[in-house]
């Protein structure tokens, strides 16, 4: 009982949830560096595991936590707007290769969503699951907006983003070797387009050029999917 009363006192203020989030984030980053930055275990996964375990141990319900952490997550709005700055900084790259990029982007970004949707649909996944994984290759702040619009579960989406990002970082090296591709611009673009922020972080580890093309792929995929997917979903929903 005293422990319960203590938890009630602490969780009466949103600062408790905010503090837990900051602590888990910092600790996650620290451990990530200690583990020598494994590609299969990104910092955000370590931090989330720590946070989930903490919530479970102290018995704070996820709904309460999420509501209080809203004091932090409200910043996602301005943070999404802030992505306009790196997008502007990528413009010289876009101009230099605008032809191949403008053809590649819509096809590749559409397929990034369609392959997974098709496989999940064939395996009999529910419409809720399909709506939740559709934005799997889109950077989180934009993907959350898309998923809310098409009626998916944001929690499942974020899990899907994590898995997709880690899988992209792991597969790009293999696929590039298989296709005999060494051009860092192509590898970077593929990392950002498919693996959003996690892929982009991986690209910056390869080289600054790969990183720039990854941010470019990430931004363009985010914009393209944000503009097309909700419309496409509405059309398919009307037909089906």
């Amino acid at each position: 009982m005293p422990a319960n009363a203590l938890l009630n006192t602490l969780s009466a203020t949103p600062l408790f949830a905010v503090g837990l989030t900051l602590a888990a984030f910092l600790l996650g980053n620290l451990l990530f560096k200690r583990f020598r930055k494994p590609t299969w275990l990104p910092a955000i996964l370590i931090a989330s595991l720590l946070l989930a375990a903490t919530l479970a141990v102290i018995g704070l319900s996820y709904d309460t936590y999420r509501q209080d952490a809203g004091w932090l997550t409200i910043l996602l709005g301005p943070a999404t707007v802030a992505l306009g700055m790196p997008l502007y900084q990528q413009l010289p790259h876009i101009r230099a290769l605008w032809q191949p990029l403008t053809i590649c982007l819509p096809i590749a970004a559409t397929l990034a969503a369609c392959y997974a949707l098709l496989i999940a649909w064939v395996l009999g996944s529910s419409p809720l699951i399909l709506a939740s994984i559709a934005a799997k290759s889109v950077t989180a702040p934009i993907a959350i907006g898309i998923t809310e619009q098409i009626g998916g579960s944001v929690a499942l989406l974020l899990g899907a983003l994590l898995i997709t990002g880690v899988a992209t970082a792991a597969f790009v090296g293999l696929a590039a070797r298989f296709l005999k591709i060494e051009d860092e611009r192509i590898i970077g673009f593929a990392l950002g387009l498919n693996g959003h922020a996690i892929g982009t972080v991986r690209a910056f580890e390869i080289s600054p050029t790969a990183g720039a093309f990854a941010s470019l792929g990430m931004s363009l995929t985010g914009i393209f999917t944000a503009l097309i997917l909700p419309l496409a979903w509405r059309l398919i929903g009307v037909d089906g």
Partner: protein
Amino acid sequence: MPILIGFLWLIGYWLIGEVFVHFTGLPVSSGVVGMLLLSVTLTIRGRVPNSIAAAAQPLIALLAMLIMPGVVGVFFILDELAGQWPAILFALILGTLLSVTTTLWLLKRLMGKHYAR
């Protein structure tokens, strides 16, 4: 103070995005509209003002932390989706392998003469 001025700009663009979505009824998020408006503004001005950079850089660096409260939610829906996980995992992993390969192959073909060995 520049950081506050920059932050106010970002909030302003986000709010313009809200108004845009409200009036057009388009299914896009206000953040995306604000992001596009910001990059158009920067293109017209031809440079990034210090205030915008001061607010945007730390926010972008913190993106991972801002989505954490949502990511944690996935551990609390594990039970709800119990029987569905194998299909979800299979779709995500195989789908990602296929799309990574397609992107690499397609862009290599399209780049043609631009391709660097």
